[in-house]
């Protein structure tokens, strides 16, 4: 892709906006269309675009593979952990109303936190799949 100047420039210009849009979809998901799944895919798509245009090595330097695995696990931990927090506060599993004094606020926080977990895991999983396919044929170590 080294010779495709336009592609490189345009994608470099676009990637921040793609990720910004992903964050919008993530955190506006409780009011509009969106949520963790869509946001995770959009953010991962931005990263994968970088990898396609600038090469796998560049993406690996930006987001190391070991961090990707950690993020996959972290997202699920956030989701399932929210359930444990609500249980410790006295409610049932994933009973968000215990997260704040006002039950409505509690539900609001709960869904934001849980969707954040979903977003992290989905984005990281997409990247892990990309690394898995793009890195095929190289000696693997993890």
């Amino acid at each position: 892709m080294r010779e495709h100047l336009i592609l490189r420039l345009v994608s470099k210009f676009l990637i921040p906006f793609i990720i910004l849009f992903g964050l919008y979809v993530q955190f506006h998901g409780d009011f509009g269309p969106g949520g963790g799944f869509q946001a995770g895919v959009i953010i991962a798509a931005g990263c994968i675009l970088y990898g396609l245009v600038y090469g796998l090595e560049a993406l690996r330097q930006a987001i190391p593979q070991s961090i990707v695995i950690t993020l996959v696990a972290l997202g699920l931990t956030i989701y399932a952990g929210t359930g444990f927090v609500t249980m410790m506060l006295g409610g049932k599993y994933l009973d968000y109303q215990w997260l704040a004094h006002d039950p409505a606020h509690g539900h609001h926080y709960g869904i934001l936190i849980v969707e954040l977990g979903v977003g992290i895991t989905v984005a990281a999983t997409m990247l892990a799949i990309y690394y898995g396919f793009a890195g095929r044929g190289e000696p693997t170590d993890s």
Partner: protein
Amino acid sequence: MISANMAALQVAVPLIGAPLCTLIGRGTRAWLFATLVTWFAFAMSIGLLVEVMQNGAFSYYMGNWPAPWGIEYRVDHLSAFVLLFITGIASVVMLFAYNSVENEIAADKHRLFYTAYLLTLAGLLGMAITGDAFNAFVFMEISSLSGYVLISLGRDRRALFASYQYLVLGTIGATFFVIGIGLLYMATGTLNLADLATRLPRLGENFVVFAGFVFLMVGLSLKVALFPLHLWLPNAYTYAPSMVSALLAASATKVGVYLFLRFLFDVFGIRFIIDTWPLAEIFMALAIIAAVMGSLVAITQINVKRLLAYSSIAQIGYIVLGISFVNLTGLTGAVVHLFNHALMKGVMFLAIGSVLMRVGGTRFVHIRGLGKRMPMTMAAFVIAGLSMIGVPGTVGFVSKWYLVLAAIERGLWPVAIIVMATSLMAVVYVWRVVEAAYFAEPEANHEIAEAPWPMVTATWILAIACILFGLTTDLTIGVAQSAAVMLLGGGQ
């Protein structure tokens, strides 16, 4: 906090344990963590069973959304029993796993292996405890997808092919299952199992419901490997890592049978089975073919693990046969055989896992003369083998006794004779192993030591359980009978 949320913790602890295992686990820590999580789940399942036996069935509402809107976890005798033996077998298998996984899986993959294991466990437990049809599908996918990963990690390269084969067929099964649920949802507008059970009879003769039923049954038959949909099973069990073979043989198909029972008796109801189609007869025919063909093919195998896999197909035949009698004795036999078969197949796969570690293979040439070299391991195998045959004093006898009784109660003498005939086939394939282990000359040129003590201990815990639950049947038969009464009484 723990006692009020036991039903949620049963699934949630293995579920959160999986990512935590990836985050904190390196080497031995991953194993230790996964083991503690499994034992905690076992403690929860004991707590749930005690609760059910004292106060009867109860529900837990996820996120405090009441059923039928929210996801309901429903714990009754049947689900508590299934939870108990899955976590029980998993707890013992984890003891075995330390040395076995060290030996079979590359060290850098350990934490991911145990992560996949915990996900499988969470999925299986979720399927057994949930009272929501779609939730059951989600957990089925969790357990299956992580199960494919576990199988593919076997050290034989054919494990990859076996895993892929299972992936394709398992996905078809899961798709059929979810199409069936979708059709039921279309007809009734609910996903809650108890709510489905009250709404379905009101619809009367409804083609959407019939189609949904057929999709569900075919999908579940694939998941439980009922003849003729068993083709994924032999390769998957043969090439998977030892602890995975033991775990999946003891639990994965069993949970499928559990959902089978739930949908047949609880959701659709016994009248639907008997009145609508000759369903019981169809299942009986398939079960008999499975028992006979599975046993016959098992006799001809040269790989002991594959022999055990075909024997599992035959045992699934017994379980479905018990269900197809549609009477109290038959159902009791089927439910108790879920447990009993898990015990004896657990012992056999663990023993063969020890052989794989010490000798390097699982074919008959590898076990020649092992009766002297690995006396403890092979003795445990023989106990489980006797149980597989159905010798009195072992768990196998208890289940066969109930199956034969149920057949006689229904006046089906030929079926009772077939059950006994297949036991004779079990004698043949168990004897082949005994003959190779005890009467063949060992390979003289290399010394083979007994397996490490955790593996021997794990194998023997299950072997002793095989005898213990064969002699004192109060717990197993008691719970199985309560479950059978509930299945036959409910859903009408």
